[in-house]
């Protein structure tokens, strides 16, 4: 059982492989993000160099899947054929305070009409899509 119906676009690694460690990590239930090997700056989304010191020595490190809701929306209007007759659903931007306050987007698991509050603590929930042509795993969030 997935949070959203089947038929939404499947994420794939970029042709230049910039984000490959992230998507490989999710398959193993790990949240991998970038941290600069030279100056220690956390960075998300992925980029080829550090936005702080311009080192190309970007390391991929595992971070604990917890954070706080930074912003959110509840979507009612179906904009994709797979979402016809479905909804509402909630998407949250989550800030990871232990990883340089980088932010990640996912769905908020649970009652789609639940009260959502900025600042609430959440933990990551991995949602594997093993039957996809190229299997992938999404990262959702759940209230603590």
């Amino acid at each position, binding site marked *: 059982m997935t949070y959203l119906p089947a038929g939404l676009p499947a*994420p794939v690694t970029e042709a230049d492989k910039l984000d490959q460690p992230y998507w490989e990590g999710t398959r193993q239930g790990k949240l991998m993000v970038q941290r600069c090997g030279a100056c220690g700056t956390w960075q998300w989304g992925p980029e080829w160099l550090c936005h702080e010191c311009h080192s190309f020595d970007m390391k991929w490190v595992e971070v604990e899947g917890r954070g706080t809701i930074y912003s959110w929306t509840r979507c009612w209007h179906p904009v994709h054929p797979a979402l016809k007759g479905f909804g509402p659903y909630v998407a949250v931007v989550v800030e990871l305070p232990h990883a340089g306050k980088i932010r990640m987007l996912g769905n908020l698991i649970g009652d789609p009409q639940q009260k959502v509050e900025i600042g609430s603590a959440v933990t990551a929930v991995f949602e594997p899509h093993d039957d996809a042509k190229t299997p992938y795993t999404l990262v959702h969030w759940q209230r603590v």
Partner: protein
Amino acid sequence: MTERTLRGKVAVVGVGETTYYKHSQSPDPEFVLALKAILAACADAGINPKDVDSFASYSNDRNDPSRIASALGCKDLRFSNMQWGGGGGGGAAAVGNAAAAIVSGQADIAVVYRALAQGQFQRFGLAAAGGTVAGENALVNPYGIFVPAQRYAFKMMRFMHDHGIKREALRAIAMASYHHAQANPRAVMHGRPLSAEDYDNARWIAEPSRLFDCCQENDGAAALVLVSAERAKDFKQTPAYILGVAQGSNHRHAARAYNATDLGTSSFGPVAPRLWEMAKLGPKDVDVLQSYENFTGGVLMSLVEHGYFKAEEANDFLKLENLLAPTGKLPMNTSGGNLAECYMHGLELQIEAVRQLRGTSTSQVPGAKVAGVIAGPMVTPVSTMIFGAEETL
């Protein structure tokens, strides 16, 4: 060193529009719409279209200037320019780019244009089915986040949370546009007034936006003709002079998955001060304002970040009576704007600003001398400009 500025050096001397249609309802292909708007703008100015030598547009407009110049039989094609970035963020930047080309001797008679036929091409508010996604889209589409109403919801929601903005403030913005559209026979929503009850009872699209917080999607085209200030009085219309223009973005705006340093912003924070500096004016000097409504929450942030009022004053300032021509504190979106006149990616807002300075708006602000135009907020890059009448030079 001489001052580097566009202030007073270029004027809009012609404006043109096609009929504005609901999305997918244009009887004409998009390229025909572009041509019709350009011809109308040239006729308005009293310029032979064959004398146009330069073109500027934005948002990946599909109508190539070389084809336009060939179709029109332009004697000379000089400056061809496309402003980077999607949405309506480039609506003022494209005018500024054309003006910069004129001032630097790269262009003489420049046309800024935008054409949209969403029946011929894909709509903005609907996602294409199926397939795979990579890069930024891989981090958002699988979570059901596709279209602008959803993508920008996070910015508006955060700003409203941080500053305690009430829904009534957004409602005033929507109702002002619909109010002005009732006086404007060109407006797609002419004859379709919006009551407070209609607004409050409308369905949610993506919180914090209900239906009437969101712009229309339309077919049509708009164009402006620009010349140097020296030549501006050779043409038949009252010139609208560019007093200031600025484009840009906030820090790391395009860092994927909502990792801009400041998320709850229209992106005008660093841009608006440069506008006021070039224009040598401030928010209090603006007689009438057109502020691009992709979503009313975007207008809210644009106004705050331009300094029209502080975020903490928004609930008090954003009352309907303050936003209406002719007597409101800040008459805004006087043609009906993106919400109720036409979503021509905001180029119709430039045209309305010119009309206000000519004294020909259907919701005229008496004696308007300074007209502001804020192009599409929350995207990157954004842009903004100020037009002035001759007295302001």
